[in-house]
């Protein structure tokens, strides 16, 4: 599997995401770090990761400036052609700003930056990202964000529900997110945006391996595709 992780000024989970992708694809995993000023993704990619962090200092709105970076045009084209993309935390915010995913991430309802473990229910297994889990299974991943309060209009929420495009829901919503939504899929189910950090739970020595299962899902699904 050939992956790229996009790096913006202020990204801080880029290396972790690279390690997660490398360790999931035990054989032949090739992960490149791509600077946001590049105008083209390398050819022959299978997967693109948009990491967490505080791209451009969260100026204007979280993810707004990163979403207009030169590389993101190429990422959007990649996704539109059916490429697989994950956006984690700030990456999720960036994906909503590009329009690849609906809705927006607003300030947490309690106004606090939240940095803690959360329980998530796997809401669908119908995706490359979640096929290794059981539907309804509860997993544990950490969150670390100030703007994770997912909001969208009632019509879009209804469609997300109907098409089973909610990937993860908080068991006990920490940030006020509408419908307890922690992560959603694009209509072709190949783009996932989520606030919790799977790349921070890939080894028992750092708190758990539920995140590693997500990356193993991707590698497995893409290998058999």
């Amino acid at each position: 599997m050939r992956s790229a992780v996009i790096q913006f000024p202020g990204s801080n989970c880029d290396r972790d995401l690279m390690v997660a992708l490398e360790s999931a694809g035990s054989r032949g995993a090739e992960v490149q770090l791509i600077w946001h000023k590049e105008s083209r993704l390398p050819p022959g990619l299978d997967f693109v990761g948009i990491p967490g962090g505080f791209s451009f200092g969260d100026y204007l709105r979280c993810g707004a400036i990163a979403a207009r970076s030169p590389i993101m045009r190429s990422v959007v084209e990649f996704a539109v052609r059916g490429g697989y993309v994950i956006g984690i935390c700030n990456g999720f915010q960036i994906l909503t700003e590009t329009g690849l995913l609906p809705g927006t991430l607003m300030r947490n309802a309690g106004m606090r930056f939240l940095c803690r473990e959360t329980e998530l229910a796997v809401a669908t297994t119908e995706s490359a990202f979640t096929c290794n889990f059981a539907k309804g299974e509860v997993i544990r991943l950490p969150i670390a964000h100030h703007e994770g309060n997912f909001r969208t209009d009632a019509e879009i929420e209804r469609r997300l529900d109907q098409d089973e495009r909610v990937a993860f829901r908080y068991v006990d919503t920490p940030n006020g997110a509408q419908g307890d939504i922690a992560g959603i899929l694009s209509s072709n189910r190949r783009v996932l945006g989520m606030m919790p950090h799977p790349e921070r739970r890939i080894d028992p020595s750092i708190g758990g391996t539920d995140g590693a299962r997500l990356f193993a899902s991707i590698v497995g699904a893409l290998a058999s595709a």
Partner: protein
Amino acid sequence: MRVCVKLTLKRSVLDPQGEAVKQSLHALGFTGVDGVRVGKLVEIDIAETDRDAALAQASRMCEDLLANTVIEDFSLEVS
């Protein structure tokens, strides 16, 4: 020409920041405060002498970057 862009959260969108400011104002004794909404002001100097052209450009800037039209409204003013 300078265009001032005022960005405000749509009325339908909850504003936790405004709520926090309201509570703080209440704590300071401003008990008559019924509601607070927090927005943003962006001043843009545009190399343009025609008012309508400057406003049209600023409007495109809002659509393309400055506003998230999912949750925000914008209004423009030439100063």
